[in-house]
């Protein structure tokens, strides 16, 4: 049907009506629920094959994700960084840019936050905490600056360059935590404890629900503002049709650089959150897999405000529930990894056309590397 109308053969046959939109929304909602169910069923079959009772496992998972204030705190503190990275990535995605470097930017942000916090060690918390947050965000931005400039100036593919910079970040943090930042007494690579005046306190004692989680709400609100703002519209327009946007005076360089910097800043903020709130020290694994799962959250959430939030909560719950299941029932937490992977697979198929549309320009560039655009 879409095919017919798009060709412009029939005048005014099917304008999109609100009812259509509603139907599409319901369809996409029900497919999402279906995808979750299918993932759970396949996960259940795997459990059965390994001789476990799926119901016990799943109830342990739900319990571990929502069953207590500790569980809820765990879910929220895992969902918050995913949501923040997701929102930042979504800004770039909407502008037609696929940055997959959040992982490295989280690492850079953690280093930046630690260094800033150490600099403000004797300042009041009211200064030290925002300063370290800013430091984290700036380091995250710095980590994407070169890929952004390369993309803007030379059309260097941002997927490749941001991935490469993630590798640089991994090497850098390993060096720093083995050498200059390592306390003389430490055996494993790690930093000094995070300065006390910069630490984000717990909202509920006995959980890991720290005040940094509220940053996710702030970023969520900022994202809602962004997609409704005039500038956000310009960036979306660029993502939809770059040549039209340029003909309307929207600067291509500005969109590319700014949207990548925004994504870098949010990832850097996550680095700060993890260092100052959750772990209170910087480790090599500080970013865990947040950077990569954050991208997944952005994609699965369709780069929309509500979608990213739901996807982040879902993955946060799966991760905290999986670990709880492992400790309470002895069922390996890798089951929850399998479910996450199945979900990813299911959604990728569901959203394949959109993802292909988003990446088409990028893929075209792959074949053109070295051939064009000197």
């Amino acid at each position, binding site marked *: 049907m879409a095919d017919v109308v798009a060709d*412009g053969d029939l005048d005014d046959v099917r304008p999109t009506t609100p009812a259509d939109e509603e139907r599409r929304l319901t369809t996409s909602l029900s497919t999402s629920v279906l995808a979750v169910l299918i993932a759970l069923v396949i996960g259940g079959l795997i459990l059965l094959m390994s001789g476990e009772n799926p119901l016990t496992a799943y109830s342990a998972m739900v319990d571990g994700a929502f069953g207590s204030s500790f569980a809820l705190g765990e879910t929220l503190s895992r969902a918050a960084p995913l949501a923040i990275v997701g929102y930042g990535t979504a800004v770039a995605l909407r502008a037609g840019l696929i940055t997959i470097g959040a992982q490295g930017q989280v690492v850079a942000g953690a280093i930046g936050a630690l260094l800033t916090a150490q600099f403000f060690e004797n300042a009041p918390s009211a200064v030290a905490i925002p300063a370290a947050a800013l430091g984290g965000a700036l380091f995250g931005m710095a980590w994407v600056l070169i890929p952004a400039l390369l993309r803007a100036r030379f059309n260097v593919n941002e997927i490749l360059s941001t991935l490469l910079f993630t590798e640089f970040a991994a090497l850098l943090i390993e060096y720093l935590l083995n050498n200059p930042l390592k306390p003389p007494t430490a055996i494993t690579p790690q930093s000094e404890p995070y300065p006390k005046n910069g630490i984000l306190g717990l909202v509920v004692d006995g959980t890991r629900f720290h005040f940094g989680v509220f940053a996710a709400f702030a970023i969520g609100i900022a994202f809602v503002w962004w997609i409704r703002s005039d500038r956000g519209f310009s960036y979306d327009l660029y993502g939809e049709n770059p040549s039209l946007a340029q003909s309307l005076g929207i600067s291509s360089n500005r969109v590319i650089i700014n949207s990548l910097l925004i994504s870098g800043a949010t990832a850097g903020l996550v680095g700060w959150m993890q260092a100052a709130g959750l772990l209170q020290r910087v480790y090599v694994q500080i970013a865990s897999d947040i950077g990569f799962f954050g991208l997944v959250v952005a994609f699965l959430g369709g780069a929309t405000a509500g979608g990213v939030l739901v996807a982040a909560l879902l993955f946060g719950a799966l991760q905290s529930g999986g670990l709880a299941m492992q400790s309470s029932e002895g069922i390996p937490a890798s089951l929850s990894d399998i479910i996450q992977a199945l979900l990813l697979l299911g959604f990728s198929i569901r959203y394949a056309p959109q993802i292909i549309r988003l990446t088409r320009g990028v893929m075209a560039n792959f074949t053109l590397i070295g051939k064009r655009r000197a």
Partner: protein
Amino acid sequence: MNSEPGAGPATGTPLSVRGISRRFGSVQALANVDFTLESGEIHALVGENGAGKSTLAKIVAGSIRSDAGSMSLFGQPYEPLSRREGAAAGVAHVRQQLSLVRGLTVAQNLQLGRPGAPAVFNAAAARAEVERWSDEFALSVPAETLVDDMPLAVRQQAEILIAVAWGARLLILDEPSSALGPLETRALIALCHRLRAEGTPILYISHRLPELAELADRLTVLRAGRVVVEGADVRAADLREVATLMIGDVTLLEVNRPEIERGSTRLRVSDLSISSTQEVGCYGLDFEVAGGEILGVVGIAGNGQESLAKALTGQVKLSSGHVLVDEVDISGSAREAIAAGVAHLHEDRSTGLAAAFSVADNATARYAGSRKFTRFGVRLPDKIARHARELAERFQVRPPEPTAKASSLSGGNQQKLMAARELEKNPTVLVAHGPTKGLDPEAAKAMRDRCFAAAQAGGAVVVISADLDEVADLAHRVIVLYRGAVTDAFPIEDMTSERVGAAMAGLTESAGATSG
């Protein structure tokens, strides 16, 4: 795959369509259509936009199904469930929007999705095959150039070539000439005749009546989904009468050019040169356009028109020269061009609109980044929708529904939507690139009137087009582009097909100097 294999002998009537009907929602796109394509003929299917031509083509190709009726192909019952089945039965549909995959070469496109293609791509064999077919039809389709780097006319030839290589026994060409200049159209006609001589019947869909006399054997006229004339001999037909039957209102074709008062110079282009690796650039252009004046820029597609349009709208860095609008230099800055009141009707609606965006967002996109319709930087959807509805009604976009997606509008209405965005305020300079291309007579007239209105309001209008009729209808003065340089310039009264044809083909002395 329940259809017969494409390799079978071509016996029986190539295509017979009986009683085909198709409805989309409330619109009866086709009603009880009978149609026969005989062997060895080129059969033209004509009609307005929305007459049902493309719907019929898609049903024959298998992309959509009919609600009622039956078809037979070379004497066999034919009921394709998909385009792939249609292709397997030997029906090739070359669409208006070409379907070659960008980022690949012609040779790669030849093998991609080809029935029975080997699992491993054999570059040498594919190249040889492209070259063989290209030679056979006296074309010059490059096997190993990226599709992106080829002019539209060559892409189209490549697509036809691929269809034939895949074993097409019947070819459907949908509006093949709408983006072509006269010489390219001539080449296309020659290619069609060659295909006919080789025994491939062609169903040729077009709005352009003049070329049919030379091209086709018979013609069928569709109007509002019904056959008005079936299989008339083209040579015996009175094309003027056909036009009347097509649109039911012949006066639309006669343009009443309004008297427009000439003002002072508003657009001044001096020593304009652009070098581009992507497309043909421009070389040493000098011209002025006064307020109230319409300048036609003609030339075969791909002779620098793209570069010129971009230069006049500030979208490209110039190698030399200036573009002055009311004596303000706007070269290289789209932002300044917009601030100076330059409007741009893009040649291609798919690049001139944000297809996935709503009518409202498209109609007001010119305000993006200007803070109009915003409070604290946030856009005000209600205000935008209200303004968009007013604009849509003023420019007769149907339906004037702010929430409808731009991609859901028909071609003519998409063009009107683009005009609504660009011409909301009277422009100082209007750059109209193929403003009536591919539109039905009613929509084309509306676009012509927009151009006249812009001139009447004191704007300088530049109409860039490969369609000489379009320019003849609109322009006061004409310049001819050939390989990015001006080969001739004259008032419209002096435009004869001999003079313009020679200049477009680069047969003038000045062209020899620049192209040598």
